[in-house]
């Protein structure tokens, strides 16, 4: 049986919740585990994710039908690989609405893809409600609630919200721990490759000979290096765990429904 391919959608109804950071971590996770993949950056204006992986990112403007086709039609191709989609909050509803309308989920599954939505709410109740709505639209899709510590705690209103309760009670959760802002500024550099950094750090390799692209590494303190390593390791293991958990759940679901 061929390796399962993922279609991972990192989504949030709000700006500045850490979508691109998480998408980047997911990509680096696939790099480190040797899974071939392609990246879609749906923010045609800022193209932040494309900045980190220029050679393997397709930038799509979701307002254009040809770009929608670029993204969704990739599935049918025999050379299709795992996809990572960084979904801009501006296209949040539009994207999922189209996904439902074109019956993407069944098509994806028929082509051996497992769609997984990594949903990042902000602190307000409303973002949980929007997430719940999307979840209703996409029955049978792997869904995980992402808790990005850098975003902050849910508001009191959110804590009392029914959608919040539904999310928290029965959905896999992925926690993204907070990285020291000083360290964060080091990895925010588009030239900084997390996977490369991790490889070197795990092999206890010194950063020399210094590659031009990795120049900032050479000047990094031991403390920064171990801080980033620990943070990234935690993130990668969360991603691995959640993907496994999501897969088990969707497998169970599809066994429940014989005609699914």
């Amino acid at each position, binding site marked *: 049986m061929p390796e399962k391919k993922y279609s991972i959608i990192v989504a949030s109804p709000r700006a500045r919740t850490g979508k691109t950071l998480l998408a980047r971590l997911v990509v680096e996770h696939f790099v480190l585990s040797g899974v071939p993949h392609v990246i879609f950056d749906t923010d045609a204006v800022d193209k932040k994710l494309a900045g980190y992986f220029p050679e393997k990112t397709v930038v799509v403007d979701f307002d254009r*039908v*040809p770009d*929608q*086709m670029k993204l*969704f*039609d990739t*599935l*049918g191709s025999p050379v299709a690989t795992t996809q990572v989609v960084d979904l801009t909050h501006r296209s949040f509803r539009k994207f999922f609405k*189209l996904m439902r*309308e*074109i*019956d*993407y989920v069944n*098509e994806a599954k028929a082509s051996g893809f497992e769609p997984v939505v990594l949903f990042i709410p902000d602190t307000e109740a409303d973002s949980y409600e929007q997430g719940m709505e999307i979840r209703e639209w996409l029955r049978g899709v792997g869904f995980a609630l992402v808790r990005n510590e850098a975003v902050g705690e849910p508001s009191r209103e959110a804590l009392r919200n029914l959608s919040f309760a539904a999310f928290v009670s029965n959905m896999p959760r992925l926690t993204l721990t907070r990285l020291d802002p000083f360290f964060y500024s080091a990895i925010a550099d588009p030239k900084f490759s997390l996977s490369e950094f991790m490889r070197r750090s795990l092999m206890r390799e010194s950063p020399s000979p210094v590659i031009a692209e990795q120049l900032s590494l050479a000047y990094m303190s031991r403390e920064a290096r171990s801080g980033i390593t620990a943070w990234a390791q935690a993130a990668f293991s969360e991603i691995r765990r959640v993907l496994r958990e999501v897969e088990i759940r969707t497998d169970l679901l599809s066994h429940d429904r014989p005609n699914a």
Partner: protein
Amino acid sequence: MKPAVLLVGADKGGVGKTTIARTLLDYMAARNVLARAFDAEYPRGALKRFHPSVTDVIDITAVPDQMKMLDTLTTSERRVSIVDIRAGQLSNTLRAFTDIGFFDAVRSGEFKFCLFHILGPSVASLEEIADVMPYSGGRNYFAVKNFINETSFFEWDPAVYDSYFKKAKGAVEMNIPKLNEMAYEQVDLAGVPFSTFIKNKNAQGHIANNSLVLRGYVRTWLKHVFDEFDRVGLIERLTDE
């Protein structure tokens, strides 16, 4: 069920008659009603291109072709006949049908008849309603506004529009929603029924390579069209005794 004739026409070209006829054929198939079609765009039929196996191209002004259509109504196992009338020929066709005595047969309950009048964007198009509607006996008359492409905007003043409709008692209004242009063009290029395009098949029944996105757009749009046919109770109108 009794044999039924569904006329699709307009007194103007380019309002999407053939598109509506195509959706009707798909709809009948989806509801398990056997249908055939007559394409009156003689000598070259657009409908025939999409539904070749059930479509005959006819010249509706020629008596042999009228016989081919009307004389076979009771014998054909396909109980529903959908007729795509050539642009500008709607009034003529209705007059010819009257002369043949077709509407007498409809009144006596021998046949069912529905008239899909595709309205154009001009007020003149509303005036046609009064000319055309009496033929349907006022019952199964559908005034269809076709929004399938953006060019079909409607320039009627709502008050004027209402006044025309007040006079046309019993007329049923229908709206055909917009379909994404690129999707429409792709189906056109493929030259297959909408439902076949959605199933990702080609004319020979083999797997095609249609875009998932465009198939999705067509599927959603066709569902809305079917909902509209359901809303006006089309099948019930054809099957009730």
